[in-house]
């Protein structure tokens, strides 16, 4: 099931020193935001809200550091010439690179386990909310990863891929897309406000709910980004 490109990319993430900087940056940012920004000690935290509230913003900084090398490094070093002359379908390559970056990014959530254990011991955890929040966060990581891979496939400089990955992720998470489209489009339905804003969708998960529109939001965005990534690589091949 796991093909060679997936395994190689995952291996290269964990072989490079940069993964340790990424881990340290994630742990530090998460601690600062959870304890100083989210006031974990004094806020009721049965659902770990102090931790989950600002995780998307942290991952918008962290994920591009993982995805920036996916395609850009292959282009910069010339290994793209080997890669594109391997007998592997473009879709397979696109999904393998996305999959490896997604797993590497998602594994960072392992560092939230001490907080989860603390919450379990000292508070009465709201497992429904916590599980839903983790799922919402995984959806967020998947979109940021797909966006990062897409940007990385366009530019051959990893630093530019990081910068644009960070900017696009931050814009997606923090911008009020619903209001923007309502203001721009005549007769835009009122529910645009709720179905296009990332913060509204993420809030559904933080509330311990999962609904069809939230799943559809993440899935459609993910498929769109992966399709664009596939299109760019396939265009280079054909």
């Amino acid at each position, binding site marked *: 099931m796991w093909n060679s490109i997936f395994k*190689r990319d995952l291996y290269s993430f964990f*072989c490079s020193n940069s993964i340790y900087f990424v881990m340290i940056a994630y742990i530090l940012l998460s601690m600062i935001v959870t304890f100083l920004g989210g006031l974990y000690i004094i806020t009721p935290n049965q659902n770990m809200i102090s931790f989950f509230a600002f995780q998307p913003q942290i991952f918008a900084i962290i994920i591009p550091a993982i995805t920036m090398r996916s395609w850009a490094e292959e282009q910069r070093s*010339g*290994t793209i010439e*080997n890669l594109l*002359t391997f*007998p592997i379908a473009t879709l397979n390559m696109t999904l393998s690179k996305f999959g490896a970056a997604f797993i590497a990014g998602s594994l960072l959530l392992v560092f939230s386990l001490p907080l989860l254990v603390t919450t379990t011991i000292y508070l009465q955890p709201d497992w429904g909310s916590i599980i839903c929040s983790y799922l919402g966060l995984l959806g967020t990581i998947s979109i940021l990863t797909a966006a990062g891979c897409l940007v990385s496939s366009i530019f051959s400089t990893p630093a530019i891929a990081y910068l644009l990955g960070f900017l696009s992720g931050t814009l997606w998470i923090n911008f009020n897309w619903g209001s923007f489209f309502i203001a721009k489009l005549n007769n835009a339905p009122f529910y645009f406000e709720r179905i296009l804003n990332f913060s509204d969708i993420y809030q559904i998960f933080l509330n311990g709910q999962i609904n069809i529109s939230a799943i559809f939001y993440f899935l459609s965005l993910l498929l769109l980004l992966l399709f664009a990534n596939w299109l760019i690589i396939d265009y280079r091949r054909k």
Partner: protein
Amino acid sequence: MAQRAVNMLEVQNLSKKFDSFMALDDINFQAQKGEIITLLGPNGAGKSTLMRCICGYLHSNCGKVIVDGDELHDNLIPVLQKLGYMPENTPLYPEMKVLEYMQFIAGIYKMSSSEQNRQFEIAISKLNLQPVLTQKIGTLSKGYRRRVGIASAILHQPQLLVLDEPTEGLDPNQKIALRQFLKEYAQNALVIISTHLLEEAEALATRVLIINKGKLIRDTTVKELKQHAPKGDLAQLFFDLTNGAAKNVE
């Protein structure tokens, strides 16, 4: 009725333009298994571009590449299965160890473990990679990097082997060993190499394609070239051909 043998490679009216620069201009040739074709030409003649078009990395503006009867871009994946390619400068993953890289390549071609072991043994012994198997590619010398690149290109025993300047950076002993290996390999495959070194063509090629400014200006053999060379001086002939003085040597 006797069936006509399918050419291993057919290049038909191949042209490639980069903006207004004509990198390849109406290239035509066919080749069979058992041949070692040397693409000879000065720097910037279009050798690497032609190789990239043959391997499907670059898409030509017009013309066709047909490998073993299959048009390249219509049957990309099956054609690439039959093809082994080492690009110029041998781009490899520096963080991987040589053996890991070979395992990665074996995985790409979905080789069974017994096939993998057999091919590893051949590649390692023929290219003398044993001393560096556990070394990271980033720490290898240029010569060893070349050999790892060639080993990965031949691992799945392709019927069409395309190597861009394979002897660049090798010492004389390594060059001789590699030439011997390629001659053996070409008994059951078509081998195409590019070089700007006449000695390389002389030592290896069964056929020489001279390319200059994107055009195929000679499709010949070393023997024929020598016959046309003034006082047998191939370097002088090459100079005349690639500097537009071809008619002087006709």
